[in-house]
């Protein structure tokens, strides 16, 4: 690597910021706003130290909460905020960081813009460096804003700085992961899936670590390190050294891979493929399946792994919880006489429901990316009607989501049943509890299809809808959000099958809503211009 390989970084950084300052601003605003909401709600809800101590004791005695979100490390307001905001910050910060880096590197390459830029006085590593600078920079800005907010509410300074910095270094960590993904994978989609997979895997490992109390495991994942910083209790500053070393190593790795490959390729070399199409590839449905099958396969694998892990953890968690009379009492108050394992399971289902929704939105919006990449033109100029083309994609989205949930229900139900010694009754319960999420997910997919057909420029709003649903769910947990607002989210209408709620009516309602949205999208698509 020579100095001239980095020429033009300043120009590219300015270009990136000028192009996307609205997006970057929105990212910082969402994080800041969420922080403010969490802080004010906790200040309102827990007015005395006794109340905080009690809440902390209750939460920490729930293995499900501990596995899912982590332990509350001390009975202070600061620790409570760090605990509540930690997970959304992890997801949001990690996701935004790698998406931004991939956008400025791999997407630029995919669209051929990089080729244009490279022909000018710009070094060959300038693109990657500029992308990382923007991502690192925005993470540090967000940390500064978070510190200001926390101090503004009078939260202790040392802990606030540690917490805000842990969010920032985590974002930087996943920015570097995005940098590697962009080099390893041959195009934008796989790069996002690769980095997203690592984000999810890192979280799962921490979940297992906290859920099983195998503390060694939490040292192999950045999600664990974020916890080990212990803001407001230990303030382990040396963890930041660990983060910085890891970020440096990952960044170096991204540059090394970058130096060993050509423009427009990934690390994996392209092998020759078949000279003729397989006999089945003769319809737009077959094409959609071919384009979507690898994503469906990847999600199915993730859900199988999650199903096994969760099915196994639940028994251990339930056993531990039954020995805790205080928690059993609390549980009895919340969910009647539901067994501890069930409420544990229910919380996982909420999370996995959202993950399955990510699949559904990605699958539904595949049509939009096919249109944007001008692939749709080629197909729609053949005797394939627009309805047939779109319906094939929608069908794969709807069926694929069902497959993911059913596979999870089967695997988790079976492992849970085996560990409980009662497959016959546990398997159907878990299976239908998972499947109960399908109509709500279809509604979100329906929103994506409706946007695609009616307001194609705004399909990105589908992700906004998903984020709102997640925030409503998280907000509902700590009673920030009222029940009337919670009702907006289709997920609020999913019956808790595990708690014995077998109502069919809300599911029928959600299916009808999804059908209306999808029909509107399909009709709109037949009447609009293909862009």
């Amino acid at each position: 690597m020579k100095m001239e390989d980095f020429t033009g970084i300043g120009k590219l950084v300015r270009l990136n910021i000028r192009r996307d300052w609205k997006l970057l601003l929105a990212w910082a605003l969402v994080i800041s706003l969420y922080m403010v909401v969490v802080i004010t709600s906790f200040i309102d809800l827990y007015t005395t130290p006794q109340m905080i101590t009690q809440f902390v004791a209750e939460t920490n005695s729930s293995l499900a909460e501990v596995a899912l979100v982590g332990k509350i490390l001390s009975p202070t307001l600061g620790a409570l905020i760090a605990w509540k905001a930690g997970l959304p910050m992890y997801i949001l910060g990690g996701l935004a960081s790698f998406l931004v880096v991939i956008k400025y590197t791999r997407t630029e390459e995919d669209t051929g813009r990089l080729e244009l830029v490279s022909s000018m006085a710009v070094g060959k590593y300038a693109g990657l460096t500029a992308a990382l600078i923007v991502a690192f920079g925005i993470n540090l800005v967000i940390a500064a804003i978070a510190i200001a907010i926390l101090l503004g509410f009078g939260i202790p300074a040392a802990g606030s700085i540690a917490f805000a910095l842990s969010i920032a270094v985590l974002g930087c960590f996943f920015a570097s992961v995005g940098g590697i993904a962009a080099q390893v994978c041959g195009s934008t989609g796989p790069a996002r899936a690769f980095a997203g997979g690592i984000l999810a895997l890192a979280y799962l490992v921490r979940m297992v670590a906290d859920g099983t109390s195998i503390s060694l495991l939490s040292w192999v994942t950045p999600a664990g390190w974020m916890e080990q910083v212990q803001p407001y209790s230990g303030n382990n500053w040396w963890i930041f050294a660990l983060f910085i070393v890891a970020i440096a190593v990952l960044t170096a790795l991204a540059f090394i891979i970058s130096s060993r490959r050509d423009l427009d390729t990934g690390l994996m070399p392209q092998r020759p493929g078949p000279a003729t199409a397989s006999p089945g590839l003769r319809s737009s449905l077959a094409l959609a399946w071919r384009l979507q099958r690898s994503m469906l396969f990847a999600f199915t694998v993730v859900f199988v792994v999650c199903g096994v892990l969760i099915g196994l953890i639940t028994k251990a968690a339930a056993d531990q919880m039954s020995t805790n009379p205080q928690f059993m009492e609390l549980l009895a108050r919340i969910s009647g006489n539901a067994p501890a394992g069930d409420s544990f399971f229910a919380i996982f289902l909420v999370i996995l429901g959202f993950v399955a929704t990510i699949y559904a939105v990605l699958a539904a919006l595949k049509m939009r990316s096919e249109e944007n990449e001008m692939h749709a033109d080629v197909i729609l100029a053949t005797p394939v009607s627009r309805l047939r083309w779109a319906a094939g994609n929608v069908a794969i989205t709807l069926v694929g989501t069902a497959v993911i949930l059913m596979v999870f229900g089967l695997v988790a139900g079976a492992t849970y049943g085996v560990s409980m010694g009662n497959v016959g009754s546990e398997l159907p319960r878990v299976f239908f509890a998972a499947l109960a999420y399908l109509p709500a997910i279809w509604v979100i997919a329906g929103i994506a299809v409706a946007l695609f057909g009616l307001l194609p420029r705004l399909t990105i709003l589908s992700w906004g809808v998903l984020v709102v649903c997640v925030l409503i769910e998280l907000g509902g947990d700590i009673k920030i959000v009222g029940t009337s607002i919670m009702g907006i989210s289709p997920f609020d209408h999913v019956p808790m099958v595990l708690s014995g709620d077998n109502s069919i009516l809300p599911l029928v309602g959600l299916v009808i809503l999804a059908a209306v949205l999808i029909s509107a999208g399909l009709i709109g698509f037949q009447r609009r211009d293909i862009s």
Partner: protein
Amino acid sequence: MSVIQISKLTKYYGKNRALNEVDLNVEQGEIFGFIGPNGAGKTTTLRILLGLLGKNGGSVSLLGGDPWKDRVALHRRLAYVPGDVSLWPNFTGGEVIDLLARLRGNVDKARRAELIQRFDLDPTKKCGTYSKGNRQKVAIIAAFVSDVELYILDEPTSGLDPLMEIVFRECIAEAKKAGKTVLLSSHILAEVERLCDRISIIKEGKIVESGSMADLRHLTRTSVSVVTGKPVTGLSELAGVSDIAVDGSSIRFSVDSTGLNAVIQYLTRFDVHSLTSAPPTLEELFIHYYEHAPEAKVR
């Protein structure tokens, strides 16, 4: 019989008028050239013909049907090569050819093999690794492998090397012989000249000229470059001559087609060693329109 009949076609993108009362008429069995600079509205017109875009005004008839309403039925009878060929990066060229041909009907395996061989395409390579020219070849083969009445080709040769352009021209000639109709858009006049029976020129969303090449020639200048034994004098006094540039014994100028005969006769007095004349390029045609037909300009 008209295969394509467009009259007063108007299209807006938002407030931006992309097409302004375009008229176009393509007869059965003819090779029709549709030329204009980039951004003039060629692709927009073709995409309206394919039912990918709706129109804001005027009427369009394609193979006797309405391209917006009868999309599926009409698409059985035509094949399309897009201008910016973008294909699925994980598909091989062979797979794309088969898929598109199958969607249109059945694949004639012998024809497919023949075209792949003539265009010298490696069908086992992934589209993501093809150059622009190779992607273009895939789209051209996928179109010509289908036996249809009409071929709509949007700048099909941009990116092809000269050898492949010759193969492409053969394909067009064969299609014409078989009685097919071809609508070919291009910004290269020379290509259109070689292939087309008639052409229309579009500029800034408006058709500025239509007719056969011979019809259009009279409007234009020929550039002449000549090397003489004796210094040329008095050339500028001849009718229709302009842009004279002298460089030693060689001299370049342009001349109206009406004045060409007189100029050639005049030049023989100066002991002509070599003489080349070039037909007007598209650019010169446009310069002509800017100079002589300002009323054709679209605001």
